[in-house]
């Protein structure tokens, strides 16, 4: 740039700007039309009654007020979603981690086992939902049949025999059923943790061995800290994803029994596309955004205490 005249550099900058914008045009157009404008529009809709046919009609804070004070299902759906986050997320995280540890053992045929564990997680969600609807059938589903067989064995030993629960038909067991089903898909997260595990430098373990560290100490002081950025990323993504849990419940339970599986995303969908209360649903969407933001910020803030980035100066 040094040997050019001012006019030449300015022409170059202009050419770069034009090319840059031209190449980025698809995203710029998409962002403006499908992200920026809709964000503003949905804030506006949340203060309106809107049924997607006639133009929106301003009602101020009415939607928000009804949501918070009168809509029982709103609080139900929040509780159900919170349940999945508090119980389902850690279960998923731990199971993927445990699988990754198992696969990291230096045993032959790792690729074979890895395929076995990973394959279920790529099953299309609707197909998996249909399958698990069948597996969890309280009368003739495989899960309860196996429990019954196991129970008969215990009965012969004069031990108390468990009975298979009602799973998706029993309000108390519906959410645990969904968490149980989620375990089948732990293979996806497992791959990410496996890659992270393989990134941990061998020298750390060797040094620990020289100092006579037990396996438990090595896990706690080397493996987990080195994995913490990956765990952190998956925690945040899992949190954001939990709020959008939708397909499984739509296909399998429709929100029942007795609203036990009415999750936030389903309640929002029902309001928007079943009842055509789009303004109301938009208000739900913004509350969702604020909650997600708050949770993410919380995780970010606490991350300083437990996430360790190698290469950082202390």
């Amino acid at each position: 740039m040094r040997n050019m005249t001012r006019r030449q550099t300015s022409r170059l900058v202009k050419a770069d700007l034009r090319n840059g914008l031209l190449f980025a045009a698809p995203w710029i157009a998409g962002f403006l039309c499908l992200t920026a404008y809709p964000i503003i529009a949905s804030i506006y809709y949340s203060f309106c009654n809107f049924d997607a046919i006639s133009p929106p009609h301003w009602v101020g804070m009415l939607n928000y007020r009804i949501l918070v004070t009168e809509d029982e299902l709103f609080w139900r759906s929040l509780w159900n979603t919170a349940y999945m986050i508090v119980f389902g997320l850690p279960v998923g995280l731990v199971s993927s981690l445990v699988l990754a540890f198992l696969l990291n053992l230096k045993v032959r045929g790792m690729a074979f086992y890895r395929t076995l564990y990973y394959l279920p997680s790529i099953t299309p969600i609707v197909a998996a939902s249909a399958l698990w609807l069948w597996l969890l059938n309280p009368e003739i589903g495989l899960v309860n049949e196996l429990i019954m067989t196991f129970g008969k064995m215990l009965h012969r030993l004069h031990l108390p025999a468990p009975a298979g629960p009602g799973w998706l038909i029993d309000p108390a067991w519906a959410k645990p059923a969904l968490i149980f089903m989620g375990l089948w898909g732990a293979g996806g997260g497992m791959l990410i943790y496996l890659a992270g595990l393989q990134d941990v430098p061998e020298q750390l373990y060797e040094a620990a061995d020289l100092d006579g560290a037990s396996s438990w100490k090595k896990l706690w002081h080397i493996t987990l800290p080195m994995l913490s950025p990956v765990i952190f990323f998956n925690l945040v993504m899992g949190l954001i994803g939990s709020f959008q849990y939708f397909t499984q419940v739509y296909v399998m339970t429709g929100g029942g029994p007795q609203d036990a599986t009415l999750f936030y995303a389903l309640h929002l969908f029902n309001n928007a596309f079943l009842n055509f209360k789009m303004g109301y649903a938009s208000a739900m969407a913004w509350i969702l955004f604020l909650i997600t933001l708050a949770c993410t910020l919380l995780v970010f803030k606490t991350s300083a205490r437990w996430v360790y980035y190698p290469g950082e100066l202390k």
Partner: protein
Amino acid sequence: MTHSLDWKKRRKLRVTVKEALQHLLLLAIGVSFMLPFYWLVATSLKPDAQVFQSPPAWLPHPIMWHNYPKALTYVPFARYLLNTLVICTLSVFGMLLSSSLVAYSFSKIRWPGRNIAFFILLSTLMLPGQVTMIPVFSIFKSLHWVDTIRPLVVPSFLGGAFYIFLLRQFFMTVPLELSDAAKIDGCSELDIYRRVVLPLAKPALATIALFTFIGAWNDFLGPLIYLNDDAKYTLSLGLQQFVSRHGAEWSMLMAASTVMTTPIVVLFFFAQKTFIQGITLTGIKG
């Protein structure tokens, strides 16, 4: 002498026993993961009497191959498959084209405002879909695009934020000397994009193609919102309808589910490396 030989033999035995136990554990877990798949296919081939049998029958007898053509004509599955393939192919093409063009802009061209734009791009990744879902539906409705596949396919041609990010990281590893040399030879930006940068990003492009295809194959909410005429349904929507209308016909439902799952499993076996590479890329780079 005999003493040290015994020690070595005992150590080798301990290691082998340990390995055997590890294999046992890994296999037991593997069987548990595969059991639902087995049950899926087994049920699909069972006659009705066996489906409702308790204790469960492990082997279908007689094998009802007939369940498959029956299930596939109960609902027009062939049509749904075609619709799904059309959407998947168009989405992959659109996503590869647009994401690579935009990523090129963010990595290989210096323009004022680029960094701000990139920051905005990244922040859209954290936006929950529900926030834009309703206004976007309203936009497509006013365009009369509802009940067509356009709302499902056109957004792919406008780039996907995550894939743009991924490709940008990839493109940035292409040395500046290469594009500079091409510029000296008189290449335009488009030429550099097409001939220099794009061919070097093949692994990332393969990953994006694979995951876009699978995402479109699995997509349920999109077709649910935008497709009304059941001639236009995709597999995911068709299968869900099957569940709600013929849910108690388990053997046929399992047959239909198998048909939806098998292409993805086959795809996995052909593209295993790309799968694994893709998961680790997205999980670690994030």
